[in-house]
């Protein structure tokens, strides 16, 4: 839509706002290369010591393993629970499918601070606080709505005649699903997995309610660290996280198309 040249005023304004938007992400790069023991910009000397420090900080490495395993488990479960649900809602259309669909995506509407408290009050008497199972359950509540939404869109846009052809040729429904429908949904599955992984890996508010002194996720460990002292350690971790995020975003763009996933 570039019929009209974009005015220099708009260009300048957009450029300035982009700078503002990206400033906190850009600044962690030089800070992570700081040789100082405290956070200052510009740093007085440069080094890679803080990247080394990540791996000798057992709190951070332990929290990283928890977050990674948690995100993988949550992603797998989101697909496992979300795919049948999306199939039922889009293809079988049972009575009240629309109501159920909005009920299943409703947790996203609830502010996370409210959801976190609500889950805390129910999970505490069940002894689920500070446990891995508790974290998995809490994260599932926010990843499943994304899974349902993306998978439903993917299912709804598939060409049904291909499946009908397979059925006509005598394939039983389950075979049709696994040999025809599922392979065609590959890109939808990839973007669902990427989204669920990132949502779980970055989740901090729910995790703050759910983690205990013995079990912490990476964002919670970083939060607690920043709360107490601001040194370049968190910057080094942040750079690695931003690289991880960019990698996932590029994977989504290559397989499913970024615009299709995020802009409706």
């Amino acid at each position, binding site marked *: *839509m570039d*019929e*009209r040249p974009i005015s220099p005023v*708009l260009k300048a304004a*957009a450029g300035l*706002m*982009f700078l503002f*938007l990206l*400033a*906190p*992400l850009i*600044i*962690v790069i030089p800070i992570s290369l700081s040789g100082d023991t405290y956070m*200052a*910009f*510009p740093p007085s000397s440069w080094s890679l010591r803080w990247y080394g420090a990540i791996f000798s900080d057992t709190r951070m490495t332990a929290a990283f393993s928890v977050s990674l395993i948690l995100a993988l488990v949550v992603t797998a479960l989101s697909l496992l629970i979300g795919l*049948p*649900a999306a*199939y*039922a809602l889009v293809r*079988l259309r*049972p*009575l009240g499918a629309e109501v159920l669909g909005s009920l*299943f995506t409703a*947790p996203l509407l*609830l502010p*996370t*601070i409210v959801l976190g*408290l*609500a889950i*805390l009050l*129910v999970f505490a008497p069940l002894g689920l606080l500070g446990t891995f199972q508790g974290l998995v359950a809490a994260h599932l*509540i926010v990843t*499943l709505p994304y899974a349902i939404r993306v998978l439903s869109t993917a299912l709804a846009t598939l060409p*049904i005649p291909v*499946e*009908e052809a397979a*059925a006509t040729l005598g394939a*039983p*429904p389950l075979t049709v699903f696994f040999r025809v429908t599922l392979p065609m949904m590959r890109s939808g599955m990839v973007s669902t997995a990427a989204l669920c992984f*990132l949502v779980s890996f970055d989740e*901090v*508010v729910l995790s703050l309610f759910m983690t205990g002194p013995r079990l912490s996720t990476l*964002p919670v460990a*970083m939060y607690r660290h*920043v*709360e107490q002292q601001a040194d370049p350690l*968190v*910057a080094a971790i*942040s750079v690695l*996280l931003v690289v991880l*995020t*960019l990698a*996932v*975003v*590029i994977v989504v763009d290559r397989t499913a198309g*970024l*615009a299709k996933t*995020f*802009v409706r």
Partner: protein
Amino acid sequence: MNTLALPAREARGMSPAAVAMWLLLPIALVNAVGFLWPVVNLLRMSLNESEATGALIDTVSLATWRNVLTDSFTLELIGNSIGVSLFITLLTLVASYPIAIYLHRSSGLWRTVLLVLVIAPLLTSAVVRTYGWIAILSNQGLVANLLAAFGLAPPRLMFNLTGVVIGLTEILMPYMILALLSGFGRLDPRYEEAALTLGATPLKTFWRVVLPLTAPGMALGCLLCFVLAISSFVTPKLLGGGRVFLLATEIYDQAIVTLNWPVAATLSMIVLVLFGAALALYTRALRRIA
């Protein structure tokens, strides 16, 4: 829908409705245990009371609600939260609008690159982005050292409301940009051209043509950002340094530090009421626009 697959399923002895039920069972369980029950329980908890020692009294009364709504501290807290969130929403709108318009008018690879730059912050943890703001706003930070280089005394930008407003505005921008973009479908550049050809000044074209056409996207973005601002917690906590009191930070403190669950639940219900009010306002605004 597909009549061919139906006999096959019936041959296996299950109606589509029964199959659907089994397929929906896992998510229904997660939803019931992790969402419906907790929300109902939250409402129930706000009807309990707590002793001065903090011990929970299991009862059904409106005493906690009455205490919260007559306490000058919480009333100020609610008022501040609404005011600050509205201000942040306005700033976010002003900061996001140029980016959204620019994105709408660009195309091809350049557009994809810019879209990645908008979405990447959205997918980056709020802790990381808040940390970035600490690096910019702290006494040893970018702004302070930049001003010092010019011999100017740096203002206090952190551990106060200024820092919280700056940080939250940036953190909410991607949501606003995406909401604006999704509403820009009606904005056809030919309308602007027509207005300009007919002699309208660029400013008048923007005011009378572009702005009304983009109003639905703006309304959606504002609703989203207001709700996210009033319930955000990480940024006010870290950039406010315990000196900025908002509803969300108070809910966390009451739940985790003071362990006064009835008060925390009541404050949460108040957040939900404000959320409902914002939603009602949005629907009304949308009807007036359309």
